[in-house]
Structures are given as C-alpha cells and as structure tokens.
C-alpha cells in the first residue's frame, strides 16, 4: 500500500499551500507534490476593464510585490499605446523596481529564511522565526528589518505609499520625487550596504555547515530563464530573454519578450491551481527551467557594478560555475540586494530625473500588448488584448512562482528522498522540505491569478502515516 505524508500548511511563504509526499510499498519516497490551494481569478475579472486601470488592479494581486505587477502592467500599457516613454519615467520605474528588489529580498532572507539558516533546521520550531532571530541576534534582525524598510521607503517616496502605489501608468509615471527626497534616500545607502555585506559574510561562512543542504535542496540540472541587457548584462526592468542550461551554455538569447510564447508553454495538472510552464523546445516536463535571483545571476555575463560583480565572481567560484542548487537562491538574493543598492546610488544622481516630462500621451494604437519585467521572484509577463476603445479582451499573466513550479516539485522530492526515512517525519526533515520550497521565495497569491476550476485533493493523514480520509473535488 502506498502511503502519503502531508505537510499542511507550509509556513513562512507568501500564500497558502500544502505538500504531499507519496511513499511506495518499501517506504521509499516515490514522488512529492507542492499543492497550491489558493484561487484568485484576475485573468477573468479584468476582462472588460479599461486598460489604463490595469496597473492599479493587477498591483492588488500581491502585497509583497505590487510594484512588479504595476510595472509589467504599465509596460503592457505602453505597448498598447505604442509609445516610448520619457527617459525620466523609465529611470524612475527602474528606481522603484530596485527598491522593490531590496525590500522583497530582505523580507525573504531576514524575515523568512534567516531563522532556518542562522538558528538551525533542527532548532525548536516555536522559536525558529523572526522573533526567535530577534532574541538570538537582535542586531542582525534589526538591520534586516531596516533594510527592508529602506526598500519600502523608496517605493513610498516615488508612489506615495509602500503597498499598492498606483503610480506607474500606461505611458510613464505620475510624479517624480524632489531632490530633497532623493538626498534623504541617498544618505541611508551606506547603512543598507553595510547590512547586506554583513549578511553575505555570514551566509558564506555558513555554506560549509550546510553542505548537505546545498547538495539536496533542489540540486539538479535545469534551464535558467530571465532578462538580460544587449550585452548579456544583469537586467531587472527591460531587456530581452535569455535561456541558459546548467552547463552554462546559452540555449537561446535576445528573444524579444513579446515573443515569449515561442519559447514558453504552460501545462496544467489536476492537483494544483498553479500552472506548470516549460521551455517549449524541450517539451513537458523535460523543459523545466528556473527563474528569479539564481537564474538572473546564472544567465548574466556580468552585473555591471563593482561590488556586486566581485560577489558574483566569488559565488560562481564557490558553485563551480553555474549554481545548480536552489540553496544558492539565498546567496543570489543577497548579491542582488547589493547590485540594487549600487544601481540606486547611481540613479539618484541622474540629472534626467529632474525632467518634467513623465508621461507620454497617446490613444490605443495596438490591440495587443505584452509587458515583461523582472520581479524579485523572477520574470513576470503581462499579456493583454484590447478592443478598439481600449477595453480589455483577454489577460494572460505568467508569474515567477509559476515558472519555478516544476523545479519546486522536483526539489521537494529530492529533499524528501534524502531526509524522510521510513514512516516517520522528523522535525528537521519536515522543515527542510518546507525550507526547500522557501528557497524559491514562492508567492502563491501572485501565481494563482488564473481562472478555471481544477480539482483539489485534501488528504488527512494520521501521525503513523495511515490515510484517514481523502476528499476530492
């Protein structure tokens, strides 16, 4: 008889999900599934809305990364207007996205994952959280919280509020910060930089301790996808798509984001609301790819700023080239915070930001618009079609957590095979499975925006592993 082990709910991720681990007759892990049990419906209820409203509506998909949706949606709007937005608007959008990367990565590392990494996977679960971290290392916890606040304050400076600013609009942005506001942000940069450099130092020191986790937390070959600049440099807002394999070979490069459907297809499974995108040319599920901080650092030729490039060099050296273990997502996140801080520093001094031209005016010039940008968790696609007046006809959103779906399932199976022995789940094993998922920093509220009804299986499992009840709908 096959047995099932259920982890429900998965904690310290953004959203709700459960994991089921299926054992075979010999008690060996057969497969593992990451069930996303949320349902949103954005793609459906946005139909019929004027596209100008889409950034404001889709930003509501998520409270952690509203900026990512705001920007991808505004870019899809730019495409419908068929305009090139004013330089100041593009730079301000970039600035907000960098603030978003800082705050979201800081949240993932310090608030959600640091308790595992710094307190240990076997530590008391009641204390293995941000509060436990505050008690154990108040200086680090405070610095991490302040780093996130710094990113949030950049968003608030530009958009007027930290969460859900309706600031980026089709054609540009609505307002620019004053020189005094920019100066206020600039003088807080050294503290932020010191925090991330300290975190990097601590993380690197831990890598040897966690050799087992590095080897088993989603350590497998896969493709990596993301945006890069014209010369293959790290990108977060614009650029073109590049896919790299785990050997570092470029599979496809400089693909116009609007042609994403040429390289990406989506599969649906009955056990999750989350779709499973794959690299079209390799088929399903062999076309598994990863996105996000790890992918962005794996695909780029260089980052383009001094400190971040030095850290990238060291990371590649430690990983032996392309980092194939998802444990390195944490590492990549810290390097990206550093990169973002360096770019923020450059942008704050940019004279273009003083331009009063912030918004291009135009009517509906295209009936189809695709906006792509790099969200903290990976490449985000907003794809709209509109009627002649600008009312939305169809919406397709592909979200970072979705891209990583196949890889997350593979990661859970790998961790389970290594740590789950027999019928019993030790606290450390349970938490490692969760932490494996957490390495991707999945955002399920974002990724289950799709319409349609899919069956979901709810399984009730006793402590001894016996399936007590199973409900299908």
């Amino acid at each position, binding site marked *: 008889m096959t047995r099932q082990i259920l982890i429900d709910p998965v904690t310290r991720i953004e959203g709700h999900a459960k994991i089921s681990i299926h054992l075979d007759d010999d008690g060996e892990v057969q497969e593992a599934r990451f069930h996303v049990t949320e349902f949103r419906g954005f793609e459906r209820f946005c139909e*019929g809305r*004027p596209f100008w*409203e889409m950034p404001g509506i889709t930003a509501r998909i998520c409270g952690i990364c509203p900026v990512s949706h705001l920007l991808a949606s505004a870019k899809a709007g730019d495409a419908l207007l068929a305009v090139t937005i004013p330089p100041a608007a593009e730079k301000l959008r970039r600035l907000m996205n960098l603030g978003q990367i800082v705050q979201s990565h800081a949240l993932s590392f310090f608030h959600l994952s640091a308790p595992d990494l710094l307190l240990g996977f076997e530590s008391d679960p009641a204390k293995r959280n941000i509060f436990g971290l505050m008690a154990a290392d108040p200086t680090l916890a405070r610095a991490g919280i302040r780093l996130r606040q710094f990113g949030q304050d950049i968003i608030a400076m530009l958009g007027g509020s930290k969460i*859900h600013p309706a600031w980026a*609009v089709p054609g540009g942005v609505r307002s620019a910060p004053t020189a005094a506001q920019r100066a206020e942000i600039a003088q807080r940069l050294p503290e932020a930089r010191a925090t991330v450099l300290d975190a990097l130092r601590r993380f690197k020191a831990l890598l040897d301790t966690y050799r087992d986790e590095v080897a088993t937390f989603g350590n497998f070959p896969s493709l990596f996808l993301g945006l890069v600049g014209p010369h293959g440099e790290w990108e977060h807002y614009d650029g073109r798509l590049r896919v790299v394999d785990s050997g570092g070979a470029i599979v496809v490069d400089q693909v116009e984001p609007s042609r994403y459907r040429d390289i990406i297809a989506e599969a649906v499974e009955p056990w999750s609301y989350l779709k499973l995108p794959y690299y079209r040319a390799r088929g399903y599920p062999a076309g598994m790819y990863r996105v996000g901080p790890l992918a962005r650092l794996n695909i780029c030729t260089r980052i383009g700023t001094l400190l971040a490039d030095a850290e990238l060099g060291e990371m590649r050296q430690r990983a032996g080239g392309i980092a194939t273990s998802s444990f390195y997502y944490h590492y990549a996140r810290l390097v990206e915070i550093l990169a973002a801080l360096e770019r923020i520093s450059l942008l704050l001094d940019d004279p273009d930001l003083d331009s009063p031209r912030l918004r291009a005016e135009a009517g509906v010039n295209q009936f189809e618009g695709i906006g792509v940008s790099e969200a903290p968790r990976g490449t985000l696609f907003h794809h709209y079609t509109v009627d002649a*007046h600008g*009312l939305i006809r169809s919406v397709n959103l592909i979200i970072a957590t979705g891209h990583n779906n196949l890889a997350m399932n593979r990661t859970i199976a790998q961790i389970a095979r290594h740590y789950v022995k027999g019928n019993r789940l030790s606290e450390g094993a349970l938490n490692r499975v969760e932490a494996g998922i957490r390495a991707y920093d999945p955002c399920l509220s974002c990724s289950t925006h799709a319409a349609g009804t899919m069956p979901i299986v709810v399984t009730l499992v006793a402590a001894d592993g016996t399936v007590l009840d199973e409900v299908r709908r």
Partner: protein
Amino acid sequence: MAARTFTINDQLISAREGETILQAAREHGIFIPTLCYLDGVSAVGACRLCLVEIEGSRMLRPACVTPVVEEMVVRTDTERLREYRRMIIELLFAERNHICAVCVANGHCELQDLAIAVGMDHVRFDYAFPRCDVDISHPLFGIDHNRCVLCTRCVRVCDEVEGVHTWDVAGRGADARVITDMRQPWGEARTCTSCGKCVLACPTGAIFRRGATVGEMERDRNKIAYIVAAREQRW
C-alpha cells in the same frame, strides 16, 4: 421676502420663504448628508439620504425638496435617521460593483465619503454583483455603470445647464441605467457636445476622463453652480 422661523435640532433658524430645509440648514452650518443633490441644478429628492424628521409628521421628508414652514420642528440626526442613512449607503454599495481600491475616483468620491460619514464598516446585505458595461467609445470620456448610483446628476446637468439632454435613464428597478441618446454608445451620441459637465457633476467614478488611473479623477463639482450663477448674472 417673508422670513420663516423654525428649529433644527433645537437650534432656532431663520430662513427665507420658499427655501428648503437643506438650504436653511447649510446656511446655518448644519450637516445633512446628500448624494443626488447638486448646487446649480434642480433637486429631485431621489437618493433619500437627506431625509429628516419633522415633528407632527409620521413620514420622513427629503430636506432638499421640502420648503421651510413657520414654527416647524426639524430633527436631522436621530438614531432612526442614522440607521436609515447607513442602510441606504449599504444598499448602494450592494447594488453595483464598487471597488474603491482600484477606482479612478478613490479619495475623491462622494459615495466613499458618505460611507465613512455614516460609519459603514461593512455591508449587511448580499452583493448583487450585476454584470455592468463600461463604455469608453467617447474620445474624451467614459462611463462605468458598475460605479453608477443613478443619482441623475448627469441627466439634469446635461438638460438644464448644457441644454442638450444627451443623458437620460432607461430601464426600471435594478435594470435602470443612465443612457446617452437612444441608448447608443456614448461615442455615437450625436447630441453630445463633449462639454464635460457630466464629468464634473458625477459624485462617483462612474463618469470619468478617458485614460484616468486609480484615484486620478479629482473634480470641482462647485463649477456647475458657478456656471449657472455666472449665466444668470447672480453675482
């Protein structure tokens, strides 16, 4: 013109003959909530938010269309009135699809202000979730029926101030909709002069400038009264 003396909430009020209770109350700084009422156009008493109690009358009276009477005793803020007003606002929210957070009028909306004023922290009725159209066929403006409260300000301002009567109301009950011309898309309504007075008058985000995004529909609704006063050379 004869003066009329009466009380509102035990306060002695002096008003001109022919004035309404609402006008007299406003002149004396007494707040009575309104939604369909708009300075500069005729009052229709449609929204019922300005209902007041008058001693000796079992019926509640809309302050915007009830003239003052000598020695009348008016109450504007009783428990019963507060309950009715909150219920009216809740029903308005339940009747269409009002999503403040992503609305073009967020922060500049009379319905939203009223909900706050009457203390509406939730809606006790089931939402109707009607399927409503959005018409942005006009080159400058748009109408989103999801956000319309059928106050008819657009109808009155178009008829009485602009004098073209592009707007009217069609259908009955829950099916009632404001329409342009003979229910053509606004962009095909030949009578519309694109003057924008309906955009100025709308209390919610129902009528908006095309291209407006969240919270961008700020408007000066007093301009309608200003235009009327200027035309009649009353100032």
